[in-house]
């Protein structure tokens, strides 16, 4: 039993944080919003260069064959900057799924190619227009197509960096039956990891503002009403993070226990993001309600991710199944369905 991250994992996360801190500054956000763009070619090149697009791919597909816990740390760093580019869904969910169904697909051979995925949990497909391949779902079967083989209808998200599409299609290359539950688990746990990052960024922005902004002759951060609101939001993060990390580490068990933990992570991490973002807006006062202060980007991403990869109600039901049909108690924290399999 060891619930610590390895040196290698911490280094990986540091690399991701540094790369995103350099390439996703508030200036970048502003320029992209002004131009109506959701991707940045220079940043994507840097991401590809770092190897992040191939973390979950098997070695024979040119990947690093690392695990979900490794990618979750990168997703958390991506959340901290509300990363516009499609790294998390492409490299975290779509690419490993395509690799499991069609390991020789051309989109996997190019580390710079992004892959989009349609899932029964999500009516829309993110970043389908710029993808080299779109993994499609119909009646439990998987298919793959290129954007020009399907009809894409862009829908406007309140998140300026989310590019989402209704996808209509008649013919695509069949890939056979696929593990859509595993895709859901990955989607949920990486959304949760992003939620942790979004939440911490919202609090950090509020703390910075509360130290500077003066009212009644002193910084508003000296007032206990402000302190306690942000402290409560931080408590939410502190008790979501271990759940997210455990969920990511146990995702491979693929049983009722591990699925409940993924669901738990998804619910609480995005609640933490929502709580922190709303607290941050409140601390920023009227500035927080303005377009000019970036905190709304965090609120909007948290809102979008809350509904993707399973709603809170879907995930609560999965936890209920675990709670009401399996042994519960202090000796079951790390239980597996097939302990001796």
């Amino acid at each position, binding site marked *: *039993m060891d619930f610590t991250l390895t040196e290698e994992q911490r280094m990986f996360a540091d690399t991701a944080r540094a790369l995103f801190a350099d390439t996703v500054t508030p200036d970048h956000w502003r320029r992209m919003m002004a131009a109506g763009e959701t991707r940045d070619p220079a940043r994507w090149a840097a991401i590809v260069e770092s190897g992040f697009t191939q973390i979950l791919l098997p070695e024979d597909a040119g990947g690093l064959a690392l695990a979900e816990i490794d990618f979750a740390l990168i997703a958390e760093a991506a959340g901290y900057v509300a990363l516009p580019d499609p790294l998390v869904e492409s490299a975290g969910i779509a690419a490993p799924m395509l690799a499991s169904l069609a390991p020789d697909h051309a989109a996997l051979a190019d580390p710079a190619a992004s892959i989009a995925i349609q899932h029964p949990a999500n009516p829309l497909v993110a970043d389908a227009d710029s993808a080299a391949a779109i993994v499609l779902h119909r009646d439990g079967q998987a298919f793959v197509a290129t954007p020009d083989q399907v009809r894409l209808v862009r829908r406007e998200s309140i998140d300026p960096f989310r590019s989402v599409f209704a996808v209509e299609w008649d013919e695509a290359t069949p890939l056979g039956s696929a593990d859509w539950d595993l895709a859901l688990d990955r989607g949920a746990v990486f959304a949760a990891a992003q939620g942790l990052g979004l939440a911490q960024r919202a609090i950090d922005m509020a703390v910075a503002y509360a130290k500077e902004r003066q009212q009644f002759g*002193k910084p508003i951060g000296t007032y206990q009403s*402000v302190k306690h609101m942000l402290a409560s939001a931080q408590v939410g993060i502190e008790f979501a993070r*271990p759940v997210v*990390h455990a969920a990511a580490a146990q995702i491979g068990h693929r049983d009722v226990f591990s699925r409940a933990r993924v669901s738990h992570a998804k619910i609480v991490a995005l609640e933490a993001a929502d709580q922190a973002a709303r607290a941050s807006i409140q601390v920023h006062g009227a500035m927080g309600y303005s377009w000019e202060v970036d905190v709304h980007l965090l609120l909007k991403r948290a809102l979008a991710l809350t509904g993707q990869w399973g709603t809170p109600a879907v995930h609560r039901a999965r936890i209920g199944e675990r709670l009401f049909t399996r042994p519960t108690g*202090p*000796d079951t924290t790390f239980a597996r369905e097939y302990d001796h399999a």
Partner: protein
Amino acid sequence: MDLAYTPEQQAFRAEVRAWLAANVPAEPLDHFDASREGFEAHRRWEATLKTGDWGMVTWPKEYGGRGLDLIQWLIFEEEYARAGAPGRVGQNGIFLLGPTLIEFGTQAQKERFLPPMASGEEIWAQAWSEPQAGSDLAGVRATAVRDGDAYVLNGHKIWSSRAAFADIAFGLFRAPGSERHKGLSLIFFPLDTPGVTVNPIRKINGHVGFAEIFLEDVRVPAFNRLGDEGQGWHICMATAGFERGLMLRSPARYQVAAAALADLWKVRGNSADPALEADVVRAFMNAEAYALSIYRTASALIAGASIGPEASTNKIFWSELDIHLHRTALAILGPEAELLSEPGAHDWIDDYIFSLAGPIYAGSNEIQRNIIAERMLGLPR
């Protein structure tokens, strides 16, 4: 990261489970705060634990422990809670003062105080708060004056848990004329020393869970001072770190309560009330989250980290989850929520009343939020 128990850890769990199955009293004991009889029954249970060297498994063997690590301690606590074993009447000593003694005590002090603490021969009370020093603990006025190889203690302590029946207390005293965090010392005083008067105070549930203590020229050997003179604040904060961070509320009791809540919902729940079912699920999630967080902390401590201000987030989380869990149980019980429980039944109403103490003791949650805001987030004082 490896979230599986080793074969050794599994064997340890089996050993604990077997011992508890053979030794936990079949009939629940009277609560240790309810009566002298209940208190002494719990003292005898501590002695029984000692026969198996289960008093405090993380302590070194020479002081009555087993020299185990924090993961094994968590496994012990899990089995202890699963078995419904009696509450730990010695918790002020074993969970709070004990680790502090091991860190700050002299060899002679460890040999004198730890073994009877582990065996229950000496049950400890905490004597920090005063009528004018609650959340503002640095405002304590009780004094310790050095006189040869002794201290003479004077003052008025209050809200001292277990003091009504306990044997000895650890208190915070200041050098006359000193102010605030300076000049404080942590000093032990047996509660039967001449000049000590203990007046029990009844808790919200009628039990004498705490007491006020008057000290009038109470003479104790200088040997009873833990750490250096004037180091008292620093030592108290280390004790509070154990209290808030890890040991006071091990996660297992909440996981046992969450499991009991799920059972209550299955038997008594109304499937037409999905909001209440969501609260049952939430109570389970909270207990799991707390357990995972403590496993993470224990792993970090084993790897060489230390507990920082994030300990304050634990105290907020467990106290709030405890209240939520028990309110959910009362909502399921509905019109019967007010009824005192039958002997042997899960005592939802008394446990709920007890949960209301959580946000108050061990540093109120308002103080914890200040600590988080100022020391974790860096907001100005």
